[in-house]
């Protein structure tokens, strides 16, 4: 009896694992299969869509890079991502240290306030921001995104780094200050190097947030040469009613999968931030 019940529970457990894996991964599986299919295989409803009735081909990946703006979108996303990471780190590292160490009880409240800013939905702000961007003369330019994205990434990064700085023992800085360093120098020479892994995590999250962002990129940028990947692929690779499905799938999978893999490596730190420090993961 007992062993039958445990056996059934194990079976139910693995059915659950397979179900969730399949549910989450199926669009990506479908993307990867589609990418390598020839037209006459793909567009024949009778063919088994999960198998290759014709030999696989790399033509669509070639088409993506040679005949579409995909490479431009990638370059644009990279450009925006790198600049936003630099701005975010320059603002969030000192800000987080200030909230963690220098501002006392008042700092804890300001920390929550900054975190709340991260939760302001971009859907609420994109219309007025489009005018702000226009008045800065940044309409239809990647620089609009460079300026606006830190409003999302600074609050989140400040919050994550604040938790990180708090976990570093105060004794270390105090020892450095006893040795004659000022507060500023001991921060730069002791705290920042010790927080290296936290800063790497923040860099990864900031970069992925800029890749994920859709509304601002759609609202502020309209010319093809200035599109980023998240908007360029779904709007530009669909021409009227003509879909280049294989290239579209290749363009999505080529970005989605690497981003997801890197993101996963830093997941635990993200969760610690999301649980408001209430749970030590």
């Amino acid at each position, binding site marked *: 009896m007992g062993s039958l019940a445990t056996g059934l529970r194990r079976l139910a457990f693995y059915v659950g694992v397979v179900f969730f894996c399949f549910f989450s991964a199926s669009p990506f599986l479908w993307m990867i299969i589609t990418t390598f299919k020839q037209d006459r295989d793909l567009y024949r409803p009778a063919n088994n869509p999960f198998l290759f009735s014709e030999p696989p081909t790399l033509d669509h990946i070639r088409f993506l890079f040679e005949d579409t703006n995909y490479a431009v979108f990638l370059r644009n996303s990279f450009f925006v991502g790198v600049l936003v990471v630099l701005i975010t780190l320059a603002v969030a590292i000192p800000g987080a240290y200030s909230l963690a160490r220098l501002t006392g009880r008042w700092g804890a409240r300001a920390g929550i306030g900054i975190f709340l800013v991260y939760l302001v939905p971009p859907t609420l*702000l994109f219309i007025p921001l489009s005018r702000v961007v226009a008045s800065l003369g940044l309409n239809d330019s990647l620089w609009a995104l460079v300026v606006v994205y830190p409003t999302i990434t600074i609050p989140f990064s400040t919050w994550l780094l604040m938790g990180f700085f708090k976990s570093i023992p105060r004794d270390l800085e105090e020892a450095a200050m006893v040795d004659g360093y000022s507060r500023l120098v001991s921060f730069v020479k002791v705290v920042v190097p010790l927080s290296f892994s936290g800063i790497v995590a923040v860099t990864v999250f900031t970069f992925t947030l800029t890749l994920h962002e*859709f509304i601002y990129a759609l609202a502020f940028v309209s010319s093809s040469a200035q599109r980023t990947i998240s908007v360029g692929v779904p709007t530009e690779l669909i021409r009227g009613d003509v879909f280049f499905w294989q290239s579209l799938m290749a363009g999505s999978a080529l970005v989605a999968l690497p981003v997801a893999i890197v993101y996963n490596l830093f997941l635990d730190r993200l969760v610690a931030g999301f649980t408001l420090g209430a749970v030590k993961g």
Partner: protein
Amino acid sequence: MTGGPVARFRYLTDNEKVLGSVFLFPAIAYIVLLVAIPFALAIAFSLANVTVGNTTLSFAGLENFRRILKTPEFRQSLQNTFFFTIVSQAITLVLANALALILSAEFRGKWLARLLIMLPWATPISLGTVGWLWLLDSKFSPIDWVLRYAHLLGSPDAILGIQKNLYYLGNVDLARASIVLVYVWRMLPLSAVILMAGLTAISQDLLDQADVDGAGFWRTLFQIKLPLILPIMAVASLFTLVFTVGDMAVVYVLTRGGPVYYTQILPTWAFIKGIEAGALGEGAATALFLFPVLLAVVFVVLRASQRTEVT
């Protein structure tokens, strides 16, 4: 303290109040300039006659709100926003609890399972939705192929009808269900990992004691685990709620609000009005209907932070 400029600089870099303010200033300035002011502008726009062509703000009272409330598109968007958000939240929460229990157990290949399960959250949402767009294609959907293969569709005696396809995004009910499905797909991983953090924080002693006292799997689940992670469930729902309300990529890529305007949501409608048609006032007024959600979020976060006294 009468030294030269060096000592003076030294004094400034040692003074915690000065250094604290200098360090925090850029972050505060950024937020005020590009979040607080635009937010005030959103309110100003909603109360003014303002278009892309004429950006001088002339006070119009509640005229924008009155005008948008009259249109069926807006009412449909409001209704859909609530419907999609609430239904996808409920489904996500139930599934996320199950998934969190699975992921907090140890099993072979767990790292791979976790990687696959996290994919939807880690991927840019617009690109993930493009995958769904093709998965739900009107003619080449592999789901339809499987249904036809199983003789549930496309033959005279099939349960789902004689037609070859179900037209997921062309049929109003199926299009709505598809949007909810994609939101669940997207938010489930985030919700599950947050709940998982709550589950692993439950003390093992407590669970051992329950075991000794003879509590079985379900009893432990419903009387110990779930009540203990209730506050974390609130946190998980909060994030999935904010990210669902803050998104327009799913609807924009999947249906563009169609068929007709039956799957339109507030963000997409605000986009069509405010950006594409240039009616800034009406667009801002439409988007402001998301504000109560934000208020609720502020309330929950502040409550949660008080209870846990953030370390």
